């Protein structure tokens, strides 16, 4: 086995470089077969912090014995190819989205160890929202945040963590806070959140600090092994290539340039307190989806032969103010039609317009498959207010029926081509117990006037929908009152043409 190889080591005291042969962690592949060439060395530049962080993570995984249960989510940045090296499950995510992807990987595999590895452009610029929200949800993932103050992969543009005055290819005169803001402190920012369990900032500036980083990485991994919560390790890391320094100078710059701006600290190491909230009940799928026949399921009307209806198709439009129960009235009719073995559809006006303004819906009752669910030429219009009457009356087919909620038609309304019946539904509803039942009064009137559906079915549907006994009683009275009004006050209504 190819488990040993030479690594370039820099002596922090003397600054001299030398190669050592050492045991490579078995969490790394023996050879990097996913690379195109040079399969015995990494693609990182000499002195790059990524290589050190990789090593610390690999050793931590090895020590904890979690190699087989670890999933590593890699970012876009110089470490995009982390999967060349780690012999664990690998998922490569889009730029900035590693912590979002890791969130869902973890939720799909709740007993596994999920790591998100991200650079400062990836995590602190394009992926700011994703990291803040993953942290705020306390996702049980470990995030390793490699802060090198620059965009390495794309050749040295400014990062959110670039220091004030630091030159980059997009801040050629140095980062100016007036235009580019100040360096973003991610560890401090995340420390304002309740949910994270562990947040620490470490630096790869010398051996002592590398040992500290090693402990931090290991602690973050332990927390994952124990499923203990969100861990975040920010690692100040050298990028000699872009910084234009040799590896030794680069390490010195981490301590001299970066640490004063990004102080090393343990920001958080405790489990968040979780309040007790109710857990969702666990139920069989068929029950949850209401696929089992329940007490008030849509038991079809057995007494009615499928072909008892005298029409082949009726289109009904119901319109009024939001809050008048216009949509519900349509739903009741639709449900009734379904129970009477008809093909039916209900199409609402939808969205915010319904909050205060007008609402309307289209109902089709048909013996055949319903084509257009849009009722552009209604056989029946139920107009719950004057505005709707004016708006939709002219759509009604010649010879059609309009049921208008009011005592009289508005002045000058032309009813020469349609039958119009005025029903003071609001007043009738008031008498039976609630002004809100005006829609049910209209339902009663509609059933009596058109005989399109059976009023027994209406009661069945109401019984299934209305859970409160008192309200159901009011609805029953409202339904009867609507029918009686047509029967006694209006007399025979000439039925809409075509389905009488």
């Amino acid at each position: 086995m190819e488990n040993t190889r030479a690594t370039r080591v820099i002596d922090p005291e003397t600054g001299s470089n030398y190669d050592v042969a050492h045991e490579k962690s078995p969490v790394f592949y023996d050879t990097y077969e996913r690379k195109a060439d040079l399969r015995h060395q990494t693609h990182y530049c000499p002195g790059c912090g990524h290589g050190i962080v990789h090593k610390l993570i690999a050793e931590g995984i090895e020590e904890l014995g979690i190699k087989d249960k670890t999933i590593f989510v890699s970012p876009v940045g110089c470490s995009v190819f982390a999967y060349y090296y780690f012999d664990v499950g690998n998922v490569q995510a889009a730029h900035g989205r590693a912590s979002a992807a890791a969130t869902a990987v973890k939720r799909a595999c709740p007993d596994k160890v999920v790591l998100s590895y991200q650079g400062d452009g990836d995590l602190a610029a394009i992926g700011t929202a994703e990291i803040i929200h993953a942290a705020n949800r306390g996702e049980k993932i470990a995030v390793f945040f490699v802060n090198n103050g620059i965009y390495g992969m794309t050749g040295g543009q400014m990062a959110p963590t670039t220091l004030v005055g630091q030159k980059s290819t997009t801040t050629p005169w140095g980062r100016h806070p007036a235009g580019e803001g100040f360096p973003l402190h991610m560890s401090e920012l995340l420390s304002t959140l309740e949910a994270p369990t562990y947040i620490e900032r470490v630096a790869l500036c010398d051996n002592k600090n590398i040992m500290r980083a090693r402990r931090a990485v290991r602690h973050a991994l332990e927390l994952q092994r124990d499923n203990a919560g969100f861990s975040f390790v920010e690692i100040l890391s050298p990028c000699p290539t872009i910084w234009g320094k040799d590896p030794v100078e680069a390490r010195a710059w981490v301590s001299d340039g970066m640490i004063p701006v990004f102080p090393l600290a343990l920001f958080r190491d405790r489990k968040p307190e979780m309040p007790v909230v109710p857990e969702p009940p666990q139920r069989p799928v068929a029950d949850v989806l209401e696929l089992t026949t329940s007490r008030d399921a849509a038991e079809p009307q057995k007494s009615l032969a499928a072909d008892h209806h005298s029409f082949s198709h009726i289109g009904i439009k119901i319109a009024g103010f939001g809050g008048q129960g216009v949509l519900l009235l349509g739903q009741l009719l639709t449900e009734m039609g379904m129970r009477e073995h008809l093909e039916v559809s209900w199409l609402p006006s939808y969205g915010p317009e319904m909050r205060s303004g007008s609402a309307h819906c289209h109902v089709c009752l048909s013996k055949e498959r319903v084509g257009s669910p849009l009722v552009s030429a209604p056989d029946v219009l139920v107009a719950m207010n004057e505005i709707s009457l004016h708006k939709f009356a002219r759509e009604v087919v010649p010879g059609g029926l309009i049921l208008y909620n009011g005592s009289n038609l508005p002045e000058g309304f032309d009813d020469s081509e349609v039958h119009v019946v005025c029903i003071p539904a609001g007043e009738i509803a008031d008498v039976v117990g609630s002004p809100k039942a005006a829609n049910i009064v209209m339902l009663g009137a509609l059933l009596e006037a058109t005989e399109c559906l059976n009023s027994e079915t209406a009661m069945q549907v109401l019984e299934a929908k209305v859970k409160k006994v008192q309200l159901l009683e009011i609805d029953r009275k409202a339904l009867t009152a609507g029918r009686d009004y047509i029967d006694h006050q209006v007399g025979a209504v000439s039925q809409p043409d075509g389905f009488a």
Partner: protein
Amino acid sequence: MRQLCKGNIALMKGAILAGCRAFYGYPITPASEIAESAALYLPQIGGTFLQAESEVAAINMVYGAASAGVRVMTASSGPGISLMQEGISYLAGAELPCVIVDVMRGGPGLGNIAPEQSDYTAMVKGGGHGNYRNIVLAPASVQEMAELTLLAFELADKYRNPAVVLADGFVGQMMEPLELEYRNAELPEKPWAVKGTVETRRNLISSIYLEPDGLEEHQRRLEAKYIRAQEFECRHEAYCTQDAEVLLVGFGIVSRVLLSTVEALRRDGVRAGMFRPITLWPYPSRALAKAASKAQNVLVVELNNGQMFEDVRLAINGEVPVKFFGRVGGNVPSVEELKEIVMSFAHPSRNRFDATAAHHTEEKAIDPYSMLVS
């Protein structure tokens, strides 16, 4: 058992019957009921629902869950779909199966929440970067919201590719009888997934192919897969096309209006037929060409400025004149409106409106701003 159900809710019921146990999404009208029912159902059956911080996060969560091999979905509408496009490209590149629902609304920009079909191009031709395809299914009824979602999960897994259910505000918001039976979903093995196990440790989910030859080979493989889908997965519905002199073509909610229009036209003695692609990608071009072969005229009707129109013209390839009529902004043409339009060219002499005015449009070049073009 039949239950009266809203399209969006039926869709989620279908998804769960398909074995979907993970939903990541962000609210938007007119798709929100899908997220809301996922939030209600999934936690009760051991599934995962998460309201993400954005559609960008949501689609990348879908990426994560799909990487781990679970059946996962998201649902959104126009503006949210725009935000998801990068993620969809990654999903296609990494060959991750998932279902993306777009309940289309009016655009561009914030537009409005009324129904349009203006995301056809974005979903069928791919709105993200790179060479890829989505499998796209277009339901026209509440029942199909459930059934085509079930199918979408099957096809997504079969082809290891994102599958899109492209609905519109009306199909999502309307209620119709839904008939679903409980069945145990058969979940395919996914040996390629990353699950944090010894067996899957060597697996990698990625869309990177650094070497030009490697990326070309990868894309050739994707292409082969797409060709297979084109061969086997085209679906359509044809209604009264056998003897049709006028063929009406539309998808989703429009096909319902076309169905009624065909009936109305036939009552008036015009031999009309309707062709509805159910799969928008792969597009049922061969079936369409066949259905149109005896027609004198083809009229494409859409709630957009002629996005599918192009595919119809490609399929028919100049054999029959193809006209287009579109309404946008949330307006849906009525049966009466469409009947008049068909009469204007099918039987100009019987048309009570000015036939010359309608004829005039035939001379015009394709002008996207003119809604009736030929």
